[in-house]
């Protein structure tokens, strides 16, 4: 039996420590290796200070550094500055050129998956497909909340990939779309900012009941006379979808990498908010092969009162991944590698 789901981390997870100069990129890679998360997702615009200019020597240094820790690159997170100029948006040709620039650097780094920002137009990506094929890089449009797998905008990318009959365009799900429970870290932050506990509880209950967010926002803002923190908390519900985990198997041909978003792990290595316990069995059942890449985004919710310990949070998530993958493989049987 060969595990088909691999574990990795996005360097995004350590943004707090890197921003403050407390960890280098190599510290992050070394830590990832220490917990068996050998796949490294990189954000060149975060992690490579001379971006977009990288010499061949710099590219080799990166490859050697990652290999020195027994790790490998999994994905490259691109950005597209359509608003680079104040006076006008980038033209279509300029957008294509910018994406090609990233495809080339991605290829030079030996990375075969590129995370594409969700706002990039499917027809622009369609124009980039021949070059992505030449570079052998899969362009995966990030399915990020409040979008979800079956959002019409996402389906346009799927249609474009089908129309072009290409394996180099698809999606890249961000697990934030499976927010089954309201994150306790969000609630605590809003309470520190002045949300009354009973109003916070109302918002949590409304989310738990999956009531469409606009009802809750109106209730809090108008009927309950919500204060600034309470209204802001209610408005987070616009970005808190719980997509159906049972549908993810349908999209397996279109993705090879997952951004394993999370906000906080419990001490017992369970996630209080995101339904990994429902998603991972579906991935195993579908025989999906790819990397679950940790994307810790909890720092901004706790940094006002706690030291942020991204390593401990990521470590706990990987204990959970190992457990859920093993349980699902026992239940469904791991599929042999082709």
């Amino acid at each position, binding site marked *: 039996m060969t595990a088909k789901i691999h574990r990795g981390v996005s360097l995004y997870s350590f*943004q707090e420590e*890197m*921003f403050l100069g407390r960890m280098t990129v190599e510290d992050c890679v070394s830590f990832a290796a220490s917990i068996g998360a050998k796949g490294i997702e990189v954000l060149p615009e975060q992690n490579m200070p001379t971006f977009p200019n990288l010499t061949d020597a710099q590219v080799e240094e990166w490859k050697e550094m990652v290999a020195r820790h027994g790790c490998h690159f999994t994905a490259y997170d691109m950005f597209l500055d359509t608003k680079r100029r104040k006076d006008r948006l980038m033209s279509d040709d300029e957008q294509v050129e910018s994406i090609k620039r990233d495809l080339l650097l991605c290829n030079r780094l030996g990375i075969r998956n590129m995370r594409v920002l969700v706002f990039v137009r499917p027809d622009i990506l369609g124009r980039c497909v021949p070059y992505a094929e030449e570079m052998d890089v899969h362009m995966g449009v990030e399915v990020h909340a409040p979008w979800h797998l079956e959002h019409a905008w996402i389906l346009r990318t799927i249609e474009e990939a089908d129309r072009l009959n290409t394996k180099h365009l698809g999606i890249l799900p961000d697990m934030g779309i499976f927010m089954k429970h309201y994150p306790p870290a969000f609630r605590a932050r809003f309470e520190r900012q002045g949300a009354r506990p009973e109003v916070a509880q109302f918002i949590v209950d409304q989310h738990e009941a999956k009531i469409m967010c606009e009802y809750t926002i109106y209730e809090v803002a108008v009927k309950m006379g919500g204060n600034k923190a309470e209204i802001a908390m209610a408005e987070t519900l616009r970005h808190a979808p719980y997509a159906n985990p049972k549908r993810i198997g349908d999209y397996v041909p279109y993705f090879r990498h997952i951004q394993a978003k999370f906000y906080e792990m419990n001490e017992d290595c369970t996630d209080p908010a995101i339904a990994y316990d429902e998603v991972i069995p579906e991935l195993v059942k579908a025989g999906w092969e790819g990397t679950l890449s940790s994307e810790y985004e909890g720092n901004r919710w706790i940094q006002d009162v706690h030291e942020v310990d991204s390593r401990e949070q990521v470590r706990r998530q990987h204990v959970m991944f190992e457990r859920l993958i093993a349980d699902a493989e026992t239940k469904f049987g791991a599929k042999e590698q082709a």
Partner: protein
Amino acid sequence: MFDKYIIDPTTLRNTGPAEAPTGFAFESKLGYYRGLGLSMVEELNVGIDGEVLPREAVRFDEGPGALTLDEMETAFDRRWAFGAPATLYVERAGGFPKGQHKLSLQQKLRISYMPFPSFNNDEKVIDFAG
């Protein structure tokens, strides 16, 4: 996401002649999880005790040389790297006031994938000896 860290209060200093400062300077980091081209930094609003200083009084230098905010709009080949301190120079006769005062900074950024501008706000109460 990094608002509380964007002013480094330990770097505040006056500029110009010591006996008659013409302004002050301090270091700032970009409150964003990646670097950004300077053309997308729309405003750097510096304030003292709640009073915002004129846009023209502020210059920015991430290393190669100071630019005004107007000049930054077309500085397409320059970037403010992630986690990297840059220096803000602010013209103000007399420099930063002595004693306990509040220094504030608002960064207004044009982030292409967001439907609205992004604002980062920080303020630090500083006991300044001059």
